[in-house]
């Protein structure tokens, strides 16, 4: 067995300038934010992001000038509004968008994971999304039915995901289960996989509930223990999203200087996860965000 445990710095170094990065993030949920911060600290440039629904992670990377393209179905912080730094980047021509419907993104990643040239979907027929995208082609059904959309395989250079626990060999467990394709298919499609986890546990812990193990260690390149590693996004059932910080960012993001200041304070200055947690009010405060129902 190979020890896959790495530091945040070492794991982030598996992402190179220009890489296509599949990033877990469902609006305000479950983004590997500690890794995102480390990528910004290391000054990564020219990244392409792949998200089902990107949120604050996309906006921070856009504000830091780390990305020049986005592949995915949407970018939004839901009730906290649009991602303004990403939006400005697209409107100014700094970020190119390949917009896909959910089934088209799933098909592209599924084809990548299974080493197929493409997978078809019945979605998107009649929309303009096909016309603007060289990776989508309407083809005849070889068996005589209505046409379908062939979605070209997408193989990201690296997948970044956050999970509940892993052992030192990189076997990864989630609790309760896989909900979004981020962790279900992205790591299987990507060439390299980096997983941050709330805790690294003894292999014996995984053996008690092998049904919850969703990624085998052989498919994982690095595993990093980062408690509260998804903050300020939510990580069900451990903690809710930080509504205060989402609002603070949403305000800052409308102004380039305020956005840069925000990133200095919460991303560039804290040198470790411990320092970051201190800067955002401490772990106790994060656990109190279970009041998220009305926030």
């Amino acid at each position, binding site marked *: 067995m190979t020890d896959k445990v790495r530091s945040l710095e070492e794991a982030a170094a598996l992402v190179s300038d220009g890489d296509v990065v599949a990033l877990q993030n469902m609006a305000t949920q479950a983004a590997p934010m500690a890794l995102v911060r480390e990528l910004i600290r290391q000054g990564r440039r020219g990244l392409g992001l792949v998200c089902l629904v990107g949120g604050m992670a996309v906006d921070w990377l856009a504000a830091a000038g780390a990305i020049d393209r986005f592949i995915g179905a949407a970018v939004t912080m839901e009730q906290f509004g649009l991602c303004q730094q990403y939006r400005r980047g697209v409107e100014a021509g700094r970020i190119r968008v390949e917009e896909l419907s959910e089934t088209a993104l799933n098909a592209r990643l599924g084809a990548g994971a299974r080493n197929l040239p493409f997978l078809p979907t019945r979605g998107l027929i*009649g929309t303009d999304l096909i016309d603007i995208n060289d990776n989508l082609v309407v083809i005849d059904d070889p068996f005589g039915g209505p046409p379908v959309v062939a979605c070209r395989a997408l193989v990201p250079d690296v997948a970044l995901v956050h999970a509940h626990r892993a052992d030192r060999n990189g076997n990864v467990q989630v609790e309760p289960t896989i909900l979004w394709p981020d962790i279900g298919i992205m790591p299987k499609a990507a060439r390299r996989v980096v997983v941050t986890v709330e805790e690294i546990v003894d292999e014996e812990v995984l053996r008690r509930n092998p049904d919850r193990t969703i990624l085998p260690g052989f498919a994982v390149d690095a595993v990093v223990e980062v408690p509260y590693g998804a903050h300020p996004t939510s990580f069900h059932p451990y903690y809710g999203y930080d509504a205060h910080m989402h609002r603070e960012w949403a305000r800052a993001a409308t102004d380039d200087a305020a956005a840069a200041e925000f990133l200095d304070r919460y991303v560039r200055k804290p040198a470790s996860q411990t320092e970051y947690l201190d800067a955002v009010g401490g772990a106790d405060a994060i656990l109190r965000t279970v009041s998220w129902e009305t926030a």
Partner: protein
Amino acid sequence: MSSAWQDSPPADDYTVDELMISVLASTLSDGDQACNGMASFLPVAAFMLAQRTHAPNLVWLAGAAGLSPRPAKVPASTLEAPLWRDSVMYVEQYGDFWTYALNGRWLEKFCVGAAQLDRYGNANNSVIGDFHAPKVRLPGTAGLGDMGSIGKRLYFWNPNHSPRSLVPKVDFVSCAGYLGGGDERARLGLEGGPELVITNLAVLDFEPESKHMRIRSVHPGVTVEQVQEATGFELLLPDGEVPETPRPTQEQVRLIREEIDPDGMRKREFRR
């Protein structure tokens, strides 16, 4: 389930969000399956209302993630865990949710919110202006790009009826409606399509031949002229007098205010 809803008289004290919720709820039948996406406070409230009144067997797939949940009330997010608390099943998006949605036997209806909607029910959540050099980058199509093409019956809700949101032609089709109208949608082999548009002023449908948007009813206190003025193109009119949208019942209003959405999340979608 409440039994008082059947005999309850129309409410005098109600707000337009409550009226829109009652109209949305009326589109759901007992035994339907319904699911919701992001920032969908009115559909979520409508599902919860339908379950408490005429559709106790409505199956709700909350946030496309949790089956038959028991949220205490409408939460601040319609995608996050508080919405799908106490579900009987978690549904995984990649393999499960889209399999049930694409299959054709289930989840026949879908509620759609759109930044732009045009006279033939095409929707845009992608860009204002040119796709590659947009004036405004909108959030993106998410699942709508699929829902418009896979046979679903689409129910649009629009809390801010205006010439900006109801336009002659969308800048970009990110959800297929009736395309250029007539039989263009059918010729592509697409089933289903837009059924109703429920706004803060009126309920609109689509004339069966031309597939052009048409007034179905105007809300109490709203005139046809006001609806027309707030629309970016000329709406068709129904034969005869334009009906008035039924008001919610007193019991429906009570359920919405006291049980379903005491925090007033439904009001967040309206421009203040």
